């Protein structure tokens, strides 16, 4: 005899539940959490290095790095002057809230203002898993091509800020900025966007000002 049991439970409810706990832990300690997502090689780690170097006199920073293997990225963040924790996902293509919870326990949150989580380089899977961070930042880069918003709508729809890195390469590669931004506008109208170059530091100040403004706004909310 068959029996139907109604459930109506979100498939990722366990992840979402832990993500909410992570967010509470960050809020309690007054930490702003940013989730950096991008394809491999877009410049996540370079942008994090610049963020640390420029802001470390004013903010206490920590970085949690997600990679399939190695601690190269966490080492770079530590060398730039931030507390850092490496998560090796051992093959998983994204970070999830449970992995982040483990990494958070290795940090003294009360001693941190800004936490940057560097997700695994991937434009699909990280978009599906909430971590408990406050804002998601997508780092695109000019050599990836101008069609990426059209090809990865899920990622472009779900972020609160967009960095377009490597704009110093615009004269050398085929990248139609108008076409790219049109795709972004369709998916995520009015998305705050920072075209910049980590190499030349062009455009970096506007991005850093945004990070500091978000930090200020977060302080006001949690107090």
């Amino acid at each position, binding site marked *: *005899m*068959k*029996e*139907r*049991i*109604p*459930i*109506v*439970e*979100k*498939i*990722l*409810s*366990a*992840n979402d539940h832990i993500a909410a706990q992570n967010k509470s832990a960050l809020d309690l300690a007054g930490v702003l959490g940013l989730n950096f997502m991008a394809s491999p090689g877009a410049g996540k780690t370079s942008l994090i290095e610049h963020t640390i170097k420029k802001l470390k006199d004013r903010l206490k920073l920590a970085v949690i790095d997600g990679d399939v293997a190695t601690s190269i990225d966490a080492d770079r963040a530590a060398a730039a002057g931030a507390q850092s924790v490496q998560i090796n996902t051992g*093959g*998983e*293509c*994204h970070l*999830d809230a449970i992995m982040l919870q483990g990494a958070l326990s290795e940090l003294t949150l009360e001693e941190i203002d800004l936490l940057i989580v560097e997700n695994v380089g991937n434009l*699909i*899977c990280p*978009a*599906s*898993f909430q971590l408990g961070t406050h804002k998601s930042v997508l780092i695109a880069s000019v050599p990836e091509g101008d069609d990426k918003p*059209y090809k990865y*709508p*899920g990622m472009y*729809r779900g972020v609160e800020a967009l960095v377009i890195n490597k704009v110093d390469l615009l004269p050398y590669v085929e990248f139609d900025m108008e076409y790219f931004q049109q795709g972004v*506008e*369709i*998916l995520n*109208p009015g998305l705050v966007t920072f075209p910049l170059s980590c190499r030349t530091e062009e455009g970096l100040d506007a991005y850093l000002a945004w990070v500091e403004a978000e930090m200020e706004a977060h302080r006001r909310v949690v107090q």
Partner: protein
Amino acid sequence: MHELSITESILEISLRHAAEAESEKITDIHLVIGQLSSIVDDSVQFYWDIISDGTAAQGAVLHFRRVRVEIECQACGESYHPEELDLSCPACGSRDIRVVAGEEFRLEAIEVE
């Protein structure tokens, strides 16, 4: 690859509810997946066959109900199903929109014996 984590969640939720109902065998699992959720049915099925092996859910049939994207324009109130990637309002062109349906990602029911 993230279908593995998702399939593990489906198994965990199903087994938990079956145990609560004191059922020994799950025969069917009903999933509701919005078109905006990037889930590949075949991939979930592939992992399912492996990870459900030896559990009360072994051999259970996965049913995928896909939900069309439905948008409500916040400017003019128009309700529509976009066919293309462009989600903007066909009536007034506004991009101030709300996704009413299409982001679902849940387990609706299981059938047990």
